[in-house]
């Protein structure tokens, strides 16, 4: 726990941000990917930490509501000048509780439900894990932030998308806490949580977003008060493809199967040709998974390749597909910024490939580290902070969860 709050440390926080850590517990402070892993690559365009600690340009007094806007601006006048929002996230196997106040992450503890090698996480077991730790996490977040219930202005929680039972477990606590402390409640779209945290941490203004995780794979760009989906997977998410391949090889799920695949891929020497499935703006991974599951046993048995070679080949193939559809979206939008969010966004090889593409286009790439790439409570708090200031509220009677919640269903009234 830091002795001083991040915004009080000024430029010194840059050193803390570059250290980072891979264990659970996002911690307070900046989470921008350091430049060092990419060496002295010329023209590398990464957003560095100094811009993070100042109040983002998005904060401050909002202009008047657009004609026909769904949220009256008058409500903004009754909101605290520096609202603190508590966010609950638990849509998959990570459960996190975060506190954000006016662009600063005050706390972000997290726990991960890790299953044995060769297995995945099931909804009931995951929900049981979340129920067992969420109240301790809540107390930990308040303690780390140095706040009490009276200091919190709003309770945000993940409304969806995600796994049903874990979402319900988290929503129940959010509703109870909102009633206990007499605070307004906000249901947040998980995907938008990733985007808003990415924007906050990196300072990207209007990027083309590549959102890649175990549950979602989308290319998103903002337009006319919606985060529009320009391209996506037509079957399984890229992270799901990686996770399920990890099960085939019995790769450990600690800290995550994707991370362990990444480490093994670094030792790969041979590229095994896999199906490359880009369909216009969309991608498909289920066929690649079926193919590699089939060839893995045969090729490993005959010694044609090693598990490291397969990890390397899978990464190179699926990441190239993602780079292609991102570039296509950037060309369509005329965008000069790309932002990677989601758990798979932690992958350094993916960042490297995206950076190459951006460099060739004269564009800038933004990415965050594992504290904010991986599902966390602070991202829900940050999206909730934006929504709260824009006047959004979720009545208790409407505070259910939904496993299918499209990114473009939300009217983004907090952006121009």
């Amino acid at each position, binding site marked *: 726990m830091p002795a001083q709050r991040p915004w009080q440390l000024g430029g010194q926080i840059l050193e803390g941000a570059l250290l980072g850590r891979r264990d659970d517990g996002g911690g307070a402070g900046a989470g921008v990917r350091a430049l060092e892993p990419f060496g002295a690559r010329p023209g590398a365009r990464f957003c560095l930490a100094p811009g993070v600690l100042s109040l983002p340009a998005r904060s401050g007094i909002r202009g008047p509501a657009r004609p026909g806007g769904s949220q009256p601006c008058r409500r903004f006048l009754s909101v605290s000048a520096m609202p603190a929002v508590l966010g609950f996230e638990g849509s998959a196997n990570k459960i996190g509780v975060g506190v954000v106040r006016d662009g600063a992450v005050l706390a972000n503890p997290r726990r991960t439900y890790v299953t044995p090698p060769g297995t995945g996480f099931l909804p009931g077991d995951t929900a049981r894990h979340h129920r067992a730790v969420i109240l301790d996490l809540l107390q930990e977040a308040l303690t780390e932030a140095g706040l009490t219930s009276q200091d919190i*202005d709003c309770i945000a929680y993940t409304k969806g998308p995600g796994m049903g039972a874990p979402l319900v477990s988290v929503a*129940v606590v959010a509703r109870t806490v909102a009633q206990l*402390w007499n605070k307004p409640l906000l249901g947040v779209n998980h995907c938008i949580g990733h985007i808003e945290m990415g924007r906050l941490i990196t300072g990207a203004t209007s990027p083309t977003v590549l959102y890649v995780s175990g549950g979602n794979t989308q290319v998103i760009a903002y337009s006319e008060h919606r985060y529009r989906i320009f391209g996506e997977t037509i079957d399984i998410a890229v992270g799901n493809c990686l996770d399920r391949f990890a099960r085939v090889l019995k790769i450990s799920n600690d800290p995550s199967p994707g991370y362990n695949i990444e480490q093994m891929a670094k030792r790969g020497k041979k590229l095994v040709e896999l199906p490359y499935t880009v369909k216009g703006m969309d991608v498909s991974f289920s066929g690649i998974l079926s193919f590699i599951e089939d060839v893995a046993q045969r090729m490993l048995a005959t010694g044609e390749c090693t598990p490291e070679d397969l990890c390397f080949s899978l990464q190179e193939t699926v990441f190239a597909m993602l780079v292609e559809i991102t570039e296509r979206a950037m060309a369509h939008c005329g965008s000069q910024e790309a932002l990677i969010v989601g758990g798979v966004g932690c992958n350094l090889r993916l960042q490297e490939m995206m950076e190459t593409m951006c460099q060739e286009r004269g564009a800038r790439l933004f990415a965050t580290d594992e504290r904010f790439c991986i599902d966390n409570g602070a991202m829900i708090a940050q999206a909730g902070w934006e929504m709260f200031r824009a006047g959004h509220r979720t009545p208790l009677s409407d505070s259910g969860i939904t496993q299918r919640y499209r990114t473009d269903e939300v009217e983004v009234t907090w952006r121009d």
Partner: protein
Amino acid sequence: MQAPDRDEAGEGSEAEAAGGESSGSREGDDASGVGGQGAEGEAAGAPQAGQGPQALGPGGDAAPAPVAAASRLLEFTLTVPFRSPLEADMARRSLAPHAQRHGGVVHKELAVNGSALAVRWTAEDPVFFRISINSFLDQLSLVIRNIRGFGTPPPRSLGPGKRS
């Protein structure tokens, strides 16, 4: 803890362990619709399958009773005492948004009677019936721990967002 169906006794004891103070509704002695209907439901549906008295066959074994064409309706009623009506209502509001999660296959009603939360399930499918009850008990346990761990609720007279 009383349950109209013999399979539900285990779940009933789980609720008691989780809440520490739960009991099944058996008598329609309160003003709530849940409790009153529960008594009727229990009396009529334990189980409600039209099973008449069994007659002995020639060998002394029970002859199969005529089964009515109507499907079997399962019912379970749960009453959970809280420290105050406010807490009971808080629990209801926390748990109510998931009242119809099983697409109408299981019908669940929540109501507050004084300081107690009363819940009644009715369903024809025993699998979804059991899943719904178990799931609710898990969430109920979490809500109770949450309420006890994070303080007493502020007075209702304050509006949202205002500090006590």
